[in-house]
């Protein structure tokens, strides 16, 4: 009884936050509601025991989305006026939203009541995967191609962001050049937090082989503290044409692809023989973490642009 009371309260608050984020006229208020929404979503994931997803949502929601949206808000300047949408557009959006909602409800109705999915099969084969966390086993071994393609998608997204750079901006540093008072609150915070963040990020990547965690969650934490050092004006983002940067970005998907090709000797593409599965997965996770973290930092900072004179 109390458990359902808790779940219902979370759902009501989630709906309120979502409504407030999309219906409000105030851009800033909408952003703040969206940040709180992310927090509640990660609590909701915990309630259904999806700790890996909750970790990813907490890291992305708290560390990246808020910074991205508030950064965009800060650069909008006087352009911050939400024009009233024409009635027709609102009506179409309402109908489309209700349609998608109905489709999802219909799909949920169609699921088997005790829908265990493939959980039993995964747990039965866990031994062969080389790792102890079933989520990591699925992401990096049983369905490794999903993660391989995802890491490439992130890279393609970055190329997309970079491709909107202006002609004069190309070859410069991504985003605006940040500065802060020397020795001020922001700089002190920017020196203090990354030390802890590095430890927690590395811990989460390492924990991924036996429990919740992994390259994406740990990489996001590392990206967030790296962005903090840039926001605090302590470190300048590297120029987009820097050679080491390019190598570091492709290193993760590259090593993953290389190990996948080595699998051809063991039988097929992406096959890890049981004896080498653990070291192979940990090696991929570590290299992938670096590439993911760097890609996320550059995605949040935006396209390179010319520094103001």
């Amino acid at each position, binding site marked *: 009884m109390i458990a359902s*009371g*808790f779940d219902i309260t979370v759902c009501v608050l989630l709906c309120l936050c979502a409504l*407030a984020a999309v219906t409000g006229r105030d851009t800033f208020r909408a952003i703040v*509601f969206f940040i*709180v929404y992310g927090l509640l979503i990660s609590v909701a994931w915990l309630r259904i025991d999806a700790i890996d997803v909750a970790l990813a949502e907490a*890291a992305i929601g*708290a560390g990246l989305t808020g910074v991205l949206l508030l950064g965009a808000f*800060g*650069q909008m300047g006087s352009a911050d006026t939400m024009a009233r949408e024409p009635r027709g557009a609102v009506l179409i959006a309402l109908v489309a939203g209700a349609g998608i909602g109905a489709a999802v409800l219909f799909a949920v109705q169609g699921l088997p009541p005790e829908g265990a999915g493939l959980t039993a099969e995964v747990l039965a084969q866990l031994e062969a995967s080389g790792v102890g966390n079933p989520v990591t086993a699925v992401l990096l071994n049983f369905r490794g191609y999903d993660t391989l393609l995802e890491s490439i998608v992130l890279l393609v997204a970055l190329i997309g962001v970079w491709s909107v750079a202006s002609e004069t901006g190309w070859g410069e540093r991504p985003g605006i050049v940040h500065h802060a008072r020397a020795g001020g609150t922001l700089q002190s915070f920017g020196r203090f937090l990354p030390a802890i963040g590095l430890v927690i990020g590395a811990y989460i990547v390492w924990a991924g082989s036996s429990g*919740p965690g992994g390259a994406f969650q740990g990489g996001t934490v590392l990206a967030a503290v790296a962005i903090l050092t840039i926001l605090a004006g302590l470190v300048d983002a590297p120029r987009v044409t820097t050679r080491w940067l390019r190598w570091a970005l492709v290193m993760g998907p590259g090593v993953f692809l290389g190990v996948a090709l080595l699998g051809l000797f063991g039988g097929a593409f992406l096959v890890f023989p049981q004896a080498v599965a653990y070291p192979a997965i940990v090696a991929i996770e570590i290299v992938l973490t670096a590439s993911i973290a760097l890609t996320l930092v550059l995605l949040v900072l935006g396209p390179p642009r010319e520094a103001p004179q």
Partner: protein
Amino acid sequence: MSDWYLAIGIGLLLTLAGALFRVWRGPDAADRMMAAQLTGTAGIALVVILAAASGDWAMLDVGLVLALLAALAAVAFVKAASPNGAGDPEEDDLS
């Protein structure tokens, strides 16, 4: 035992709802941001409660990440308050 934890969790959710009211009303951007920071604190408490209720202590890692990163939104907010989003309000005090 787990029910007791969840009952406390509902209490925490209600305090979070109180902060949501402040996010809605404002009136200043700073009020909304501080209320959001308050929900971050309530969120960490909720994660700890859920970990205790389920006995799955791996959940604590989520609280760890939230505690580490919740302040980042406040940093971004402070940056957004400077003229072109690049500076730091503390610099303006000096000039």
